Each structure stands twice: as structure tokens, then as C-alpha cells.
């Protein structure tokens, strides 16, 4: 440490530092404001313009209702699968040592990097005509492609990382001391998990579920490829938005878009609020 740094900063230096901080804050506000807040406000304004009658008209359309319900079903099934299996994978990645662990850890991030369209393409190649799994399912009369099963499957694939990436660091930080204490006091494996491990990772798990929901609700690329986008059948809310803009029904598209945006925002904000409230109670 040089002598100059220990001396109290001169006034000119202090103003310069304040200018730098102010500049960085301005860049942050401008960046987030222009790229995140402005589009959101734009959608909200466009969606609220038609008024109450416009909303009841859009929401009474069977296609819109079906699309929203389908998105809800797919999201629910995705959250169920990715949270249960996500916690299992997180436990293994945080606690176990095995050859090729780094490679598995890299694979977990793959759904974040690979294009959802490519994911949809892979599903088409596996379950479509001439695909590896196609004979087995068609022999049993089970429709995978252009039906809900493939849509759930690709949505699960693209949502795999969130719960794992939120929970695994918490498990590493937590260590195994509390769990070992519980086990030596006679708790079963299941009791230890439910009473010790789960309470410790629950905010990470909830945050992972919120991120999963946000991703599943907004997914379009993979779902478009595998679903065939049949209105009233395999059309999710995002696919409906796409069709609404194609058919010049922009206001309905904006309304559904606002609903989807609000679902994600309310979930993420809600968890943030509950978490900070509980942390305040603990201190």
C-alpha cells in the first residue's frame, strides 16, 4: 500500500470519485431502463389501451383460454419434474465425488447455451418418422410429437439448470455437519432430508422454481417446433402471441404478453420480498 492511498483524499479527488460513481449509476439505470423497463411499460400501455371490454373480449375467446391453460399445465409439470430431479442432481453434484463430475456439471449448463430451436429439432429427430423412439411409441398408439408430451419434454429440457444451479451452491456452503448430527441422533435418511436439508435449501429451491416458471411460461422456440402450433390444441400462450401478431390481432397479443410478464414478475418479486422479510426476523 502506497502512502498516497492512506492520506485522506483531496477535494478534487473526492469530486472525481463522486463523478465516476454517478456516471456508473447513470449507465446502470439507463441500461436497465431502456432494455428492460421500457419494453415492459410499452407492453403494459398497449395491453391496457383497449380497456375492460377489450380484455373481456380477448379472455372469452376459447383459443386464448385454451392457450393460457395449456401453458399453465406444461409449466406445472415442468416445475414438478425439474424441482424433484433438480434437488437430486444438486445433492449428487455438491456431495459426491466421481470421475467425469466436471463434465456432468458442464452438461447441466448446456440447456442455457443451446438454442431451443435445436432442442425442438432433436425431439423431432428422435420422435418423428424414422426416429429412434418413434416405433416404440407408435406401436402403443402414444402420440408424442405434435402433442402435449413432447411440449412438456422440451420445456423440461430447457428448464433443467435453474433449480440445480440455485440449490447446489447452498448445499456446498451448508456442508454435512448438521445432517450427520441428525443421523447420529437417530433420524432416518428421509427425516434428515425433510427436517434438516430441505429447510436449509428452501429459498434456493423456491428461487429455482420461480426461474423455471418464468422460463417455461415464456418458452417459444422448442415448443413451436415440436407442437405444430395447432390453435385450440397445441397452441401455448406464447404461440398464441406469435399468431396474434401474424393475424393483425395485436391488442390480444399484448394482453396475453402482459399476463405472462406479470406471472414471472410477481413470482420473482414475491419470493424476494418473503425472503428478505424472513431474514429480517432472524436477525
Amino acid at each position: 500500500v502506497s502512502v498516497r492511498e492512506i492520506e485522506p483524499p483531496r477535494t478534487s479527488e473526492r469530486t472525481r470519485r463522486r463523478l465516476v460513481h454517478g456516471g456508473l449509476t447513470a449507465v446502470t439505470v439507463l441500461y436497465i431502463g431502456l432494455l428492460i423497463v421500457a419494453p415492459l411499460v410499452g407492453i403494459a400501455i398497449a395491453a391496457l389501451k383497449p380497456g375492460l371490454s377489450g380484455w373481456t373480449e380477448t379472455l372469452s375467446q376459447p383459443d386464448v383460454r385454451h392457450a393460457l391453460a395449456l401453458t399453465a399445465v406444461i409449466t406445472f409439470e415442468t416445475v414438478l419434474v425439474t424441482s424433484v430431479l433438480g434437488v437430486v442432481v444438486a445433492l449428487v453434484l455438491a456431495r459426491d465425488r466421481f470421475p467425469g463430475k466436471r463434465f456432468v456439471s458442464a452438461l447441466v449448463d448446456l440447456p442455457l447455451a443451446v438454442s431451443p430451436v435445436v432442442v425442438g429439432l432433436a425431439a423431432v429427430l428422435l420422435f418423428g418418422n424414422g426416429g429412434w423412439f418413434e416405433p416404440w411409441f407408435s406401436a402403443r398408439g402414444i402420440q408424442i410429437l405434435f402433442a402435449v408430451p413432447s411440449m412438456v419434454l422440451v420445456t423440461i429440457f430447457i428448464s433443467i439448470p435453474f433449480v440445480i444451479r440455485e440449490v447446489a451452491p447452498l448445499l456446498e456452503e451448508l456442508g454435512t455437519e448438521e445432517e450427520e448430527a441428525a443421523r447420529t441422533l437417530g433420524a432416518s435418511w428421509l427425516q434428515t432430508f425433510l427436517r434438516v436439508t430441505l429447510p436449509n435449501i428452501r429459498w434456493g429451491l423456491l428461487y429455482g422454481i420461480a426461474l423455471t416458471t418464468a422460463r417455461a411460461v415464456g418458452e417459444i422456440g422448442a415448443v413451436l417446433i415440436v407442437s405444430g402450433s395447432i390453435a385450440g390444441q397445441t397452441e401455448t400462450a406464447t404461440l398464441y402471441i406469435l399468431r396474434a401478431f401474424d393475424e393483425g390481432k395485436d391488442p390480444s397479443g399484448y394482453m396475453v404478453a402482459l399476463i405472462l410478464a406479470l406471472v414471472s414478475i410477481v413470482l420473482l418479486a414475491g419470493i424476494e420480498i418473503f425472503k428478505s422479510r424472513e431474514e429480517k426476523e432472524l436477525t
Partner: protein
Amino acid sequence: MLPHLRPGIVAGSLLALARALGEFGAVVIVSGNIINQTLTAPVLIAQLITGFKPEAAAAIGTILFGLAFVLVLIVERLVGRREVES
């Protein structure tokens, strides 16, 4: 400060690069998908599949998948090394 942040910055940029390479939903709505002008690789793949040319789609898809895979492996190396150091 910068040397400490470097692995994180590079890893984050690479994930951003991967995401940008694969983006579909937002691009398909705003671009109009004009061939040789605003048609991106993911949108082309979608068009080839709906146009019953799965082989061509698979060719481009393999390139995109390969890029994503390499990026993820690099990110894992960067982040993994940071964990060992700390």
C-alpha cells in the same frame, strides 16, 4: 480488481454469446425473416423443419449445438478453476 473478475466476466460473456446465437422467439417477431438480410440460423432451422427438410435443419442444428457445447465446456473450466483457487 479486473484480474479477479476476469474468469467471471469471460464465463458470463460466453453464456451471453451462446444465448444470442440461439435466440429465436424475440427475433422471429421483430425481424420479418428476410432471406440474406434478417434471417438468423435458428429461424432458418425452424423454416427448414416446417418445410420438411430435416436433414438441412439437422446440419445447421449440429453446428449451433457444437458451438453451444464448446462454450459450455469453456465456461465450466473457467468457473471450476475459480472454485479450486478459493
